[in-house]
């Protein structure tokens, strides 16, 4: 946001990319690569959600339905109709975006908790529908190939997914600093004043839902190939909440936080597999701790530490004032 915005918006994607490549090259373990890939796939969707929640102040408790729509379309076209994954991407992402447009249209009529319920009902309806109509699921989604490049290999898939993550990160970072990004922030901070400044609230809401859903669509599309199989159980209500939690504990409104949150939520529950009974309990407690102690999310750890060390006072954490 400051003058130095130009370099700093390139710094974090560059460093993420560097770490990702380093991780991919040094890891021989399928398991860790796969966790990393899964975290990346979720991160793409969560980056979209940060735009929605943090950027525009909208809410979606049914985002699993968006990812699921895309994954279902991908799986159906590739498994049952012989499409290649690459060509299936177009209808898959388009389908997800269409769902997003519908949700965005709902956001015109409802706000706050009502919008929360509409999106929640959408997510639940999707998984009920999936369970009833597509209960058998699809198996054998082929791996992604880009011309001669076969991404079936875990290492290459990992790199490909994270390339998409970094691209999404860059795009969203640029987006929030553009005219459209400012209109999102205006919508979030004060819809009345935003409209009085000439911002078309309806178009902006629909657009931000569409963008978030398109990213969700990309995420669902990648998921179908990563998993190789698609069933409704992967897109249950819990996924919606997990995505939301990733967005929040990483740092609401921060696209980099979206990545931190996704990696955190995918990797941390894998610790303590030996203490199976306490694992999920610990996850709940960790979530509450982050919420209570770090309102800026895990991505703000640096700032909080710096504040503690330098004993800076005053305007370090801008107060979020209601209304």
């Amino acid at each position, binding site marked *: 946001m400051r003058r130095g915005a130009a370099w700093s918006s390139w710094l974090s994607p560059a460093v993420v990319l560097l770490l990702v490549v380093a991780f991919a090259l040094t890891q021989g373990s399928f398991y860790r690569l796969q966790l990393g890939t899964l975290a990346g796939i979720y991160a793409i969707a969560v980056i979209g959600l940060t735009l929605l929640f943090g950027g525009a102040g909208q809410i979606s408790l049914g985002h699993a339905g968006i990812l699921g729509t895309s994954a279902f379309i991908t799986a159906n076209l590739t498994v049952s109709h012989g499409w290649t994954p690459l060509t299936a991407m177009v209808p898959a992402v388009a389908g997800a975006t269409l769902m997003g447009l519908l949700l965005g249209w709902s956001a015109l009529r409802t*706000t706050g908790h009502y919008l929360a319920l509409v999106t929640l*009902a959408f997510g639940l309806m999707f998984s009920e529908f999936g369970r009833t109509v597509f209960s058998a699921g699809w198996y054998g989604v082929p791996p992604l190939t880009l011309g001669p490049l076969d991404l079936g290999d875990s290492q290459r898939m990992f790199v490909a997914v994270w390339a998409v993550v970094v691209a999404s990160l860059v795009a969203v970072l640029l987006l929030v600093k553009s005219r459209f990004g400012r209109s999102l922030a205006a919508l979030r901070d004060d819809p009345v004043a935003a409209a009085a400044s000439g911002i078309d609230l309806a178009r902006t809401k629909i657009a931000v839902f569409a963008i978030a859903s398109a990213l969700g669509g990309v995420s669902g599309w990648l998921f179908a190939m990563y998993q190789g199989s698609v069933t409704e159980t992967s897109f249950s*209500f819990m996924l919606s909440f997990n995505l939301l939690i990733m967005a929040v504990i990483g740092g609401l409104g921060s696209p980099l936080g979206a990545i931190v949150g996704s990696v955190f939520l995918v990797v941390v529950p894998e610790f303590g597999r030996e203490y199976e009974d306490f694992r999920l309990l610990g996850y*709940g407690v960790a979530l509450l701790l982050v919420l209570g102690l770090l309102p800026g999310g895990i991505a703000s750890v640096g700032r909080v530490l710096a504040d503690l060390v330098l004993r800076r006072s005053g305007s370090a954490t801008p107060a979020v004032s209601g209304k």
Partner: protein
Amino acid sequence: MSILVNLMSVDYAQVLATGTTYGAIFGAIALGYHLIYVSSGMLNFALGEQLAISGLGVISLQAFGLPLIPAIMVALLVAGLFGAGYERIALRPAMRMGLIGPLIASVGVSIVIAQGRVLIWGPNPRPFPPFTGEPNQAVDFLGGRWQIQSFWIIGLVTLSTLCLLVFLRYTSLGRAWRATSQSPVGARLSGINPSLIAMSSVALASVLVTVAGIAIAPLVLAGGFYGLNFGVRAFAAAILGGFSSTGGVLVGGLVIGLLDAWLAAALSVAWSEIALYGLLILVLLIRPTGFFGREVVTRS
């Protein structure tokens, strides 16, 4: 055409029996949402999970040798303290993130409750005897089969609602609650501590859903996976009833209960769920403030 016939040819007497029973439970949870929402603006998703474990709590207390009634009393007390506690350590600190904070924190509380339940009571739900009569004993009433426990459920929910209304009207804490719900700023100016009101709301709501949870346990087992299911339906009931109207959310509960029972009888259970959510979305889009909510006047 056949779908239409299916929809109409339903055993309405049975729909009434099932719908009223479950509707009362949805209404009680919705009332809990309402209490918390109106006084603090927070949404608490943990109420459903609290409902699901309440029967287990009573079973454990009975295992310590307490008779049923004292065990229920102690369970209600524990529920109230638990509610007040997690409002303080989980929901309130998350307020710093805006209203979405408590919502997510309440999901965190749900996870803790659900996993804690497995640690304490194991993964399987347990049978819970009805308050009177044999398990599953049913009588014919108004043309349908009613479980004896249904009358207990409806009676207990009505009774606790009445208690709550009396409490809100005639006690000083109740008056403070009502003042806060009408004007948080005004209440603060007249010396009421809104954060204390929020805490007691969560405690009250916890007691309320625990009553409902114990009452329903003989029908659906203690500690089943129904927390989310009930929680979402009650959420719908609260929204339908307009969230800010006490009578409205109870009627909303009843409407959702009857609708649920009717759809399940008319369609298959799977399609009835889809239809229920679809209807809900439709209603919200057509009438975003529910049927009993006040029109919110926004002034600049």
